[in-house]
């Protein structure tokens, strides 16, 4: 798959629209999934996905091939979503959604209706910003930790640390306090 992606991105950089269309078709669900998990509602995720592919179209010629195309796409998607989240937070009139959007009415596939549980969605929204992408990429998308580190351009140890703390916060937020209260563990840094 990655070889094909490289061919497609190279052709897209030369203005081949068919190649760009194929690349988008191969990756758009993946990008949309990341955006939806990052942003929490489908409209925002669709907007972000649109921005991601416009960025890909504009910057295809800058892809250096040092990493997989999907890594590059994930990085653009995460950065686009973080930008949207920061813009949201700057605009008091546009608060973070505290609800889960209903599934698209036109969805025929059962998978399309697969939304986060409301309580889990809310807990994700309340995570510190730097914890969100590691959780989305590693725990929801199932990416290997070294790949997450490459996407986020941070050390693997930092990914582990953020995941660890993110899960702890999620557990606490979800009321899943299986551990004893007053736990002696403080902030943990890898």
């Amino acid at each position: 798959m990655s070889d094909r992606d490289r061919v497609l991105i190279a052709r897209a950089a030369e203005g081949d629209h068919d190649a760009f269309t194929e690349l988008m078709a191969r990756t758009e669900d993946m990008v949309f999934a990341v955006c939806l998990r990052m942003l929490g509602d489908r409209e925002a995720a669709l907007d972000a996905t649109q921005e991601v592919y416009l960025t890909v179209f504009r910057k295809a010629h800058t892809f250096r091939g040092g990493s997989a195309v999907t890594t590059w796409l994930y990085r653009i998607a995460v950065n686009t979503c973080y930008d949207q989240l920061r813009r949201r937070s700057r605009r008091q009139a546009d608060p973070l959604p505290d609800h889960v959007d209903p599934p698209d009415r036109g969805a025929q596939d059962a998978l399309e209706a697969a939304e986060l549980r409301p309580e889990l969605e809310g807990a994700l929204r309340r995570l510190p910003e730097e914890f969100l992408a590691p959780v989305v990429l590693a725990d929801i998308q199932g990416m290997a930790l070294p790949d997450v580190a490459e996407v986020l351009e941070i050390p693997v140890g930092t990914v582990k640390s953020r995941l660890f703390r993110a899960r702890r916060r999620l557990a606490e937020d979800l009321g899943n306090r299986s551990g004893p209260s007053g736990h002696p563990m403080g902030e943990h840094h890898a």
Partner: protein
Amino acid sequence: MHDHDLDLIAAYADGTLTDDTSHAERLVASCEVCRAEYERQRQVRDLLRGLAPVRMAEAERARLHEAVWSRIEARREVVPPAPSRVPRRVPWWLRLAPVAAGVLVVVVGLGVLLQTGGGVESAAEPDVAADLPATTAAAAAPSATTLAPPVGGQSAPEDQAFAEMVEEAAPVPSPDLRRMSPGVDLGETTIDEIEAVLEDLVKADTVTTAEPAPLPACFDRLDGEPLAMVFAVLDGEPVEAYLVGDAATTEVVVFVLPDCTPLPG
């Protein structure tokens, strides 16, 4: 329990502990706190991993494709048929530079005012800046950023072409720039609007936009789109800089080559 135990337990819970797991197993079996943490990590991870995959609905997919292609096509349609007065080898953003100079001064000046003026207090002043000739507006901005003819740093043909364009360029301002006039929150001005203004100016001046040329490598690290080249003065020295609009945040920032360092405002 120590940090290294936490690392061990986290890796054990992740299933990424490839070495001997016996120590981790002993910890979980013998230490209540360790076991609780292990369970907590596993439960949350399993909860997240158990989520069903996300797919776009077909209607969403169609909307996405339509939106992406319409925006791509919109960018292509602004290329006028008129021949360029500058050599084709000059990158498109370089061609934009002198035409956009007035825009840049206003935008950069606005950005600086927004950054340094604290918003409310300075809100009334920028209208004045917008009405001033570009050079005056630039001078009014309390910044090291001023537009100036290029000095060095380019190959001779491009340098000459750029110098000619700078001479020809009138210090705008287009009526459309009112939309970006100070007093309007820059955050509300989309990059599309800024680009539309630039494109109108390009049309009016018959300067063509062409396929983007390869940009400096450091642009890879920027999230934004380089809108135009500017020549700025930093610490008394002329520097080659680029105005970069971030399509997502609508922030406009000037970056200085060769490392794309943000220009201090």
